[in-house]
């Protein structure tokens, strides 16, 4: 009963967040335009700079851009919550007989929809600039699902962060300090093997690396002559990524909901 009403109320909040896609230009830019920019930028600026024997660097890059974009996109969850908490509407929510988890649940849910739109836009842009899915369609679908799952888990970290900062600006600044190294010290744009020793170990165990590796495999974007990865996570990227996603959700979802209830009570 409790879970059911939480899901129902969460859905109402999610619907409200999605309406904003049409009305708030910032959201539209974030969800639609910045992914297009990322693909074009990386494809044309970096894509032609590096030669990969037996493959195309542009195709190698796409997996990285997918991974990076959905992780960056999670900050949107946090910023959205931080913004909600500043506004009068939160007082309304708090006085209504709705589930205490709904605001956070609804936010993370609507961000899944945002991510689906973002990924679709990126895939189309990618196809236009020459990226191809070379594996089976089913594998490709699995690749997109994996991206969504991982993004959903990072959303919960950002939700907790968003409820702990005084304003959306603080969230954006704080989260980028973490997210930039996390997405760059990985195999997103260069093979993990080419990094210096310490960074290489970090990159190999970084779940963002395994996500990107998994996506590349599922899209069939690993060049045929590429060397087998040396580390376990990159050899079993799908399992490793799913494991991390579940772990993050299990830890951060309860923390974020508890944080919301506490913030709601104290202020």
């Amino acid at each position, binding site marked *: 009963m409790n879970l059911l009403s939480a899901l129902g*109320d969460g859905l109402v909040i999610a619907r409200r967040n999605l*309406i904003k896609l049409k*009305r708030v230009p910032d959201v539209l830019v974030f969800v639609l335009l910045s992914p297009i920019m990322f693909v074009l930028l990386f494809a044309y600026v970096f894509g032609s700079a590096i030669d990969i024997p037996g493959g195309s660097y542009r195709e190698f890059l796409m997996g990285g851009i997918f991974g990076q974009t959905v992780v960056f996109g999670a900050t949107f969850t946090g910023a959205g919550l931080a913004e909600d*908490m500043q506004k009068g509407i*939160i*007082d309304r929510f708090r*006085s209504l007989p709705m589930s205490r988890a709904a605001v956070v649940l609804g936010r993370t849910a609507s961000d899944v929809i945002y991510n689906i739109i973002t990924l679709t836009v990126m895939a189309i842009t990618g196809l236009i600039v020459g990226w191809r899915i070379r594996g089976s369609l089913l594998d490709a679908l699995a690749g997109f699902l994996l991206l969504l799952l991982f993004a959903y888990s990072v959303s919960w970290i950002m939700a907790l962060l968003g409820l702990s900062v005084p304003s959306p600006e603080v969230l954006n600044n704080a989260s980028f300090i973490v997210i930039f190294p996390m997405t760059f010290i990985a195999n997103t744009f260069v093979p993990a093997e080419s990094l210096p020793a310490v960074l290489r170990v970090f990159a190999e165990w970084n779940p963002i690396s395994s996500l990107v590796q998994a996506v590349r495999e599922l899209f069939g974007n690993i060049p045929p002559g590429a060397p087998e990865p040396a580390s376990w996570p990159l050899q079993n990227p799908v399992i490793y990524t799913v494991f991390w996603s579940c772990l993050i959700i299990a830890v951060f979802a309860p923390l974020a909901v508890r944080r919301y209830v506490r913030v709601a*009570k*104290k202020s």
Partner: protein
Amino acid sequence: MKDIIQATGLVKRYGDVVALDGLDLSVREGTIVALLGPNGAGKTTAVSVLTTLIEPDEGSATVAGVDVLGDPAEVRKLIGLSGQYAAVDKDLTGFENLDMIGCLYHLGRKKARSRARELLDRFDLADAADRPVKTYSGGMRRRLDLAGALVAESPVLFLDEPTTGLDLISRRELWRLIRTLVDQGATLLLTTQYLEEADRLADDVLVIDKGKTIAHGTVDELKDMVGGERIGIKVTDRDDLPAVNEILGRVAVGELQREERSRTVVAPVSGGARELAAVLQAFEDHQLRISEAVLRRPTLDDVFLALTGASAESREQTPESAKPGRRGRGSR
């Protein structure tokens, strides 16, 4: 009639600021009670406690027989709240806002929709129903916010300064709407800084100062305490003040308020316009030069002067520190 809102000894502190200092209140079913007081008197804090938004440090309260601290979830099913800052989503349309609130009250999709349309009609927002709220005027936003409190036809309504910051026309419109609510059987607790608003709407008034009730009664009882209308005189020449004081002193039913610096004297009177005319005639006879003469109703300021000997303005705490809510969040 039974008490539908009941609070005893509510205390709430924010650091050194005492927002509520042992507040007691009770509201009978089917009546409108106004909490009257200046900024920072604790009105919003009191409403926040009763609507489960904040927990008091001490004291207890029940709404419709349900313990506010013990079962806040149950209380939320029974109340409607309209806040001081219009608590609506400005990116959503009026309809979408009310529809969302209806769904969150668990009315069901269909009922939520029809209720939203019904309220938009009743609050004269039907034409703007499908426009984003950010295009609304201040008065329209307040009306929508008030409509939000009514979505579930809750038996107990809380309106926190429903007309603060509105122009006179919007205010009158809102008063008209609020009065119709009680005709339909709701119980209403409203906070206000305006004596006139309490006068227009409330059956009972609690005057609040520094987190405590300092007077309780009907508006008429309160007015008897405060005296009737006021004559306010401003002289051109400060030297005329003693003579003006003397003339006003003869007609005043209470103590004169004198302000040397602004060269004004205010006298509570009982005779209205007739008395004003007589006073002006007397000034004329004594060749006193008057720059302003007004006859006005008592204000919150007059109530506070009568009850505490200090003006409402001087009782104001800094609103930033005394008010709960979003502003306080950054400090943690």
